[in-house]
């Protein structure tokens, strides 16, 4: 089976600084990969590589067997929740529709019926049918983030890239959004690459973790990677990982305030 994402000896450097290199990673269709690490460790850059926006200094990157390229398709992208302005002239259905053809030139006057059907199905899948015709700017953060999931999925991607999609959502909405993403990969075999600074909200869903620290990285199941020994080695300092009920608490690493690294 073709891996949904395949990195071979991949590396990124900015000038002399090596962000990470020698990264070998295959993500299976339907697999849920969490990408963790402190700010500046290159999590968002990894997403940029997969999107074809950041060239590799070495190695290769394949999406569904094809070299990653800008606007290459087959990829859905869910960003961090950012409030949309209230006077944005878009309804919920329009926002989702942009995920289907917003990158195309021209007015797109053909195939309206098919487009409407796919948008309606995507809205239905995230439970957003009720507010399909509402202005996006008047919806709550949780409602807007459901729409972004629908927008990412409406094009039937093979790979779903998520960049801190739960940030600034309350707990209930974090559960809703992560459950939607989980449901998708189970029913449609979409691979999920999920960048986050906080693994706990998605811990039960994660198959494997890629943990990046200062150019070093470790790949494995949460049980393999999220241990005191592994993280101490990655951070090169004493780190303790405690399990408190169903949560992981990492002690000894400076509190990481997630700050959003934009793709642009």
């Amino acid at each position, binding site marked *: 089976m073709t891996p949904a994402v395949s990195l071979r000896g991949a590396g990124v450097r900015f000038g002399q600084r090596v962000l990470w290199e020698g990264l070998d990673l295959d993500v299976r269709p339907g697999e849920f990969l969490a990408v963790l690490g402190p700010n500046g460790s290159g999590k968002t850059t990894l*997403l940029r590589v997969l*999107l*074809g*926006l950041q060239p590799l200094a070495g190695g290769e990157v394949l999406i569904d067997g094809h070299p990653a390229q*800008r*606007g*290459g398709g087959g*990829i859905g*992208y869910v*960003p*961090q929740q*950012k409030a*949309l*302005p209230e*006077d*944005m*002239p*878009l*309804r919920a259905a*329009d*926002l989702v529709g*942009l*995920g289907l*053809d*917003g*990158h*195309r*030139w*021209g*007015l*797109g006057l053909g195939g309206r019926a098919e487009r409407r059907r796919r948008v309606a199905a995507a809205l239905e899948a995230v439970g957003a049918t009720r507010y399909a015709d*509402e*202005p*996006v*700017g*008047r919806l709550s953060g949780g409602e807007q983030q459901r729409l*972004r999931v629908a*927008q*990412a999925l409406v094009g039937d991607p093979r790979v779903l*890239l998520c*960049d801190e999609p739960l940030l600034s959502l309350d707990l209930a909405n974090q559960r809703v959004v992560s459950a939607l993403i989980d449901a998708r990969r189970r029913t449609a075999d979409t691979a999920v690459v999920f960048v986050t600074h906080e693994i706990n909200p998605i811990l039960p869903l994660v198959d494997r973790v890629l943990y990046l620290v200062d150019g070093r990285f470790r790949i494995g199941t949460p049980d393999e990677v999220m241990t005191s020994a592994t993280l101490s080695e990655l951070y090169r300092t004493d780190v303790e990982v405690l399990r408190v009920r169903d949560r992981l608490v990492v002690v000894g690493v400076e509190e990481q305030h997630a700050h959003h690294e*934009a*793709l*642009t």
Partner: protein
Amino acid sequence: MSALISFDGLGELLGLPFVQNAFLAAALLGLVAGALAPLIVARGMGFAVHGTAELAFTGGAAALLAGISVSVGAVVGAVIAGLVFGLLGLRQRERDSVIGVVLAFGLGLGVLLLALYDGRASNKFGLLTGSIVSVDSGNIAVLVGVTIVVLAVLAVIYRPLLFASADPDVAVARGVPVRALSPLFAVLVALTTALAVPIVGAILVLSVTIIPGAAAARVTASPLKATLLAVAIAEVSLLGGTLLSLAPGLPISGYVATLAFVAYLLCRVVGRSRGRVRTA
């Protein structure tokens, strides 16, 4: 009041070629300004448009002094301003201060250039407050050409531009050239602004490039309906303003701005009543 609202001799006035040109120019401007307005509002470009208009004024004043076509000067000034503002990126705070700096300098320079000009005073005043007499058949040809170019380019880039305006991060991820679209759209806006300056004046360009979009956004969130409504409001304001200004012989800008403002208030009232229904 009778000096402001009058229809004396309107019949003869409407028969004059320059008056017919003025209506044609107003109609063309309404079409492009209305089509761009919702996107200008969505991208939060109100202040940039105002700055662009002031630079169009500076360019026009320089052209007046140099004895070349005012339209050409206005286009050059506006396009330079549009490119500079378009390349500034999307960080609102920083953008606003740079626009303010450039705007103030451009306006000051324009006033100085006008003071040095010793030709007809109406030419001077016309740049700031607009004048329909400034539209001759040569201008009409330019107007038609620019209208076609702006609308054609807008039709091609409309969807990616809307995408980039709503969610730049996701648009970039999908391969939309977000950074290139920003100066391109700014140039479209600059061309429209340059057309608007001789007609409604540099000070009141916002009345046709912002108000119709802001008004439409109050009533509908459908991109298509918002665009159609904005065009309708721009047309009513510009054509109505031209008509009302004829007999009193006053600048059209006051009439255009007033009509657009009334449309905006109406849209707010309608939007609010709908909002109540929604949240109930």
